[in-house]
């Protein structure tokens, strides 16, 4: 059993989408549950990707190929996860803050949260406070995730949280932040409820925030 998980995490790590796709299918045929395949195969691979990227042993192109492989696996698992009655944990609203056009990290966290059982509302990149506020009113999420790639734009996270407070919406949501330049101290300083240092930990944070971890 563990052999296929190992092969799957390696396929994700190596960014081989075709192989990932095949291995997920094989795992299902062998009777493994979608949840097991996700948690013990795909996510284990992405955890290692995150660690290697941080150490400088992997670069953006490789990370993207790995994310694409994870996506290829998720494509098969998504409908099955829903069908198999994995408890839906709630809605996560995700956006990259104003002035920032980077969405690779946000998309990765969204995929991880989806795998964990959340419904994702993606408001895209360069999203100003008003856009967050409108989307919160419209979709009533439990968790709001903000992403920033630059030290220049991470300040917009604090401004967005303030605007949400002023709009009277702060108490109805939990806020998590992440992105390359963001750390726990900064997250605390701007009044976020949670922080994720990489994509898998972003999903773990969302789970903790809704009391599901």
């Amino acid at each position, binding site marked *: 059993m563990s052999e296929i998980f190992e092969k799957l995490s390696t396929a994700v790590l190596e960014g081989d989408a075709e192989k990932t796709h095949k291995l997920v299918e094989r795992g299902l045929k062998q009777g493994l549950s979608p949840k097991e395949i996700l948690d013990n195969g795909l996510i284990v691979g992405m955890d290692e990707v995150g660690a290697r990227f941080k150490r400088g042993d992997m670069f953006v192109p490789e990370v*993207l190929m790995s994310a694409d492989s994870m996506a290829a696996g998720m494509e098969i698992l998504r409908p099955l996860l829903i069908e198999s009655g994995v408890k839906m944990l709630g809605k996560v609203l995700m956006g990259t803050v104003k002035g920032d056009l980077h969405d690779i990290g946000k998309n990765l966290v969204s995929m991880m949260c989806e795998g964990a059982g959340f419904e994702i509302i993606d408001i895209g990149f360069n999203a100003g406070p008003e856009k967050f506020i409108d989307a919160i009113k419209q979709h009533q999420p439990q968790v709001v995730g903000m992403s920033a790639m630059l030290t220049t734009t991470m300040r917009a996270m604090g401004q967005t949280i303030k605007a949400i407070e002023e709009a009277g919406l702060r108490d109805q949501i939990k806020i998590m932040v992440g992105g390359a330049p963001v750390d726990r101290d900064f997250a605390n300083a701007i009044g976020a409820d949670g922080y994720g240092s990489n994509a898998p930990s972003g999903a773990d944070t969302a789970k903790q925030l809704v009391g599901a971890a």
Partner: protein
Amino acid sequence: MTSAQGLPLVVIACQVFQSLIETYLPEGMAKLVTFKDYGLHRVPDKLTWSIQAEIDSIKDPSLIMLGYGLCGNGLKGIKSRAHTLLIPRTDDCIAILLGSYKKYMQEFDATPGTYYLTKGWLESGSNPLQEYQEIVAKYGEKDATWIMDQQYQHYERVAFVAHNQEDLEKYRPKAMEVAEYCKRWGMRYEEILGSDIYIRRLIEIASSPGKSDADFLVIPPGSEVTQDMFMR
């Protein structure tokens, strides 16, 4: 006047500032000048270790002028040890090359999705066209194109920052070659005449640290650089 006055000066800077610093740093003012590889900022952790190793190798208490901004948190966690550090208070090299934090913010607010090119970056070969050429061999055209699209598809502008007419003309063909490739994402090409004022002030403050102001950080011995020092 601070206690840093009179300390020997050491310069540790990114190669991107090499020609500017060499132009304005008076001969004999620094006892040691080291320029470090441009590529280090791609892995901020490596930038931190590499600068810390340079600092740790300096025996006598010195004033160390760092030619870096926060650089994606690359400077976060740097310890001054027995030295005093002087650092431009900016996010990255762009504000320094444009001449001020204010100018950078103006450019940023007007067009956040800007890919900046400079003489240094063009010489080092780090730009989207070069990146594409590097990865196409490994991934093939289809995947390489997809990888590039993922990273740059939302950018709007290529801005070439040069400090004089001569550099502008000399590096324009290369800059335009990169810009031509970036047209695939609808990016437009612009040229900006940078300013040497930030570097000149940095060097001036290195000779009299008491003149430091909000555009610079003077970190005393026994301290650590933190992210919030750069926030304004």
